[in-house]
């Protein structure tokens, strides 16, 4: 009997994986809370896809453990043709997750409904599941159309529908918006960000699109050299973000002196404008009040924040 845990839908503990002498994953630790939309970031070759393959049972790790809904995915066993024991996935756990790896795996000769019936038959689900998941991904009208006639976005939605068969507790998606046009990206983004609330499914996805992470994830982790280098939930990350401000004032020189006296570093860009960099969000009202109280005319104030993309680029530039 599989247990029902309380904290994390997915947990990786000290996962290591080596390919042809190259360490791809090195003692990787990660925890994905229930109900989260978890983004897994990293440059190409950092081990994202390998991690996804390990999570979906396609590649066994060399060491460590993967826990899905409180149950260990791998157990060590010795096969008939091997002298040493290796990790073997527990197929029962694959009932609890839906996996989409790289490009969608579809059979163009089948209709959408026929394709979904593959997962239904294998998981022993009623045929009504097909209509349910097609409705979730807004493909009800296309149930009887051949997949070969589908657009890339429709194919991606259908592949996601397949992962949703049987209401899995956890979805693992490898770059789900890869190759989609803007409207396709918007559709998938909306679909995935609404899933935890609508179906109770936890979503774990890898991506290169950092804008996507800010817009749909609740938490993210950055993988570098096979290890997690940074992990945060999006609200905390946003709260900790620093802003740059441009102030249009009557006398930039006087404003600069006032700000300096109160510990703010500013740069004059012209006699009526100055710039303050690296300002925490909660300091902005104080800065405005300070200038006004000191009799400095404040005409306008613009702020710009560091996007996740800028932050990620800075972090990954050696």
């Amino acid at each position, binding site marked *: *009997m*599989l247990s029902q845990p309380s904290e994390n839908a997915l947990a990786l503990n000290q996962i290591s994986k080596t390919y042809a002498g190259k360490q791809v994953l090195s003692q990787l630790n990660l925890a994905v809370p229930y109900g989260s939309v978890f983004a897994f970031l990293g440059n190409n070759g950092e081990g994202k896809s390998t991690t996804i393959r390990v999570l*979906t*049972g*396609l*590649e*066994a790790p060399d060491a460590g453990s993967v826990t899905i809904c409180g149950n260990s995915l*791998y157990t060590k066993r010795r*096969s*008939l*043709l*091997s002298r040493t024991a*290796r*990790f*073997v*996935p527990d*197929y*029962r*756990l*694959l*009932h*609890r997750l*839906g*996996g*989409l*790896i*790289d*490009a*969608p*795996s*579809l*059979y*163009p*000769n*089948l209709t959408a409904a*026929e394709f979904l*019936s*593959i*997962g239904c*038959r*294998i*998981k*022993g*689900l009623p045929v009504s599941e097909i209509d349910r998941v097609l409705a979730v991904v807004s493909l009800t009208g296309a149930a009887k159309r*051949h997949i070969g006639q589908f657009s890339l976005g429709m194919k991606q939605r259908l592949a996601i529908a*397949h992962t949703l068969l*049987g*209401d899995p507790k956890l979805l693992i998606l490898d770059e789900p918006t890869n190759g989609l046009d803007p409207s396709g990206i918007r559709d998938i983004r909306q679909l995935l960000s609404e899933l935890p609330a609508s179906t109770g499914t936890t979503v774990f996805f890898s991506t290169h699109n950092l804008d996507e992470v800010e817009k749909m994830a609740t938490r993210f982790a950055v993988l570098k050299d096979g290890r997690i280098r940074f992990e945060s939930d999006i609200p905390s990350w946003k709260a900790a973000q620093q802003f740059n401000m441009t102030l249009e004032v009557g006398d930039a020189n006087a404003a600069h002196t006032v700000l300096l006296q109160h510990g703010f570093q500013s740069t004059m860009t012209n006699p009526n404008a100055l710039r303050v960099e690296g300002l925490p969000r909660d300091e902005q009202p104080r800065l405005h009040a300070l200038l006004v109280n000191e009799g400095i005319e404040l005409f306008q104030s613009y702020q710009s924040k560091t996007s996740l993309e800028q932050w990620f680029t800075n972090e990954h530039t050696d």
Partner: protein
Amino acid sequence: MNIPINPFPGLSRLLAVECLKLKRTSTLLMVFALPFLVVLFSTGLAVKSQNLAGFDAQAWQRWWMGVMALWSYFMLPMFIALITGAINGNEHKNHGWRLMLALPVNLYSLYIAKLLLGVLLTASALLWLWLSGLLATLLMTALGAPGETEYGMVLLNAMPALMLTSLPVLIIQHAVSWRFGNIIVPLSVAVMATMGIVQIGSSEYWVWYPWSYMTMSAMGGTEELRHHAVWLSLAVATGLFWLSTLLAASHKRAG
């Protein structure tokens, strides 16, 4: 939703899924077209070389044996390579392995289900070969040839043996197609192996050459030889089945 935890979907369910994947593909067409072509070709040759009114018992025997020879020497090995290539190629081409292996599917069951589908399609093609032959005899009789029933029944009785002796080749071709994504590989194996049937199949070394078992069961000179081919096939198929299943699983899913 409360999902019943069934570790391995039954073989019958997997087999149904594998059948579904072939829907609207040319694989099913091959099951009917290739046996029909063999009969058509043999009939064309017979009609061209001899007046139908003079079709005696010997001519009928030659005709039926011609059909069987063309099928077992050449078309059956190629047919097996094509259908096993199509069954596995479906996954290679459409990234189906990733789909199937991310589902709660036991790899051994998947391998066996695909092999079973190959066996079913081969059996269907054999049956259709016999039916096509029967249709051809009816047509030739209608066109003036004397009636024939004896050899048709003899060859119907030979079909189970032909099916059993095709098992080692089915397993070999299935294992090759499972392993290699490029259809050229299993087809090359089939072409090269088929070329060897004539030389090795007619020598004392035929027992070491699984491709010769089919011709031996269909065309073997004595009853004893034909039985020998069947028993040998069963023994070889059993060994190949276990070995290839273990190897196939270790290849597709590391760990």
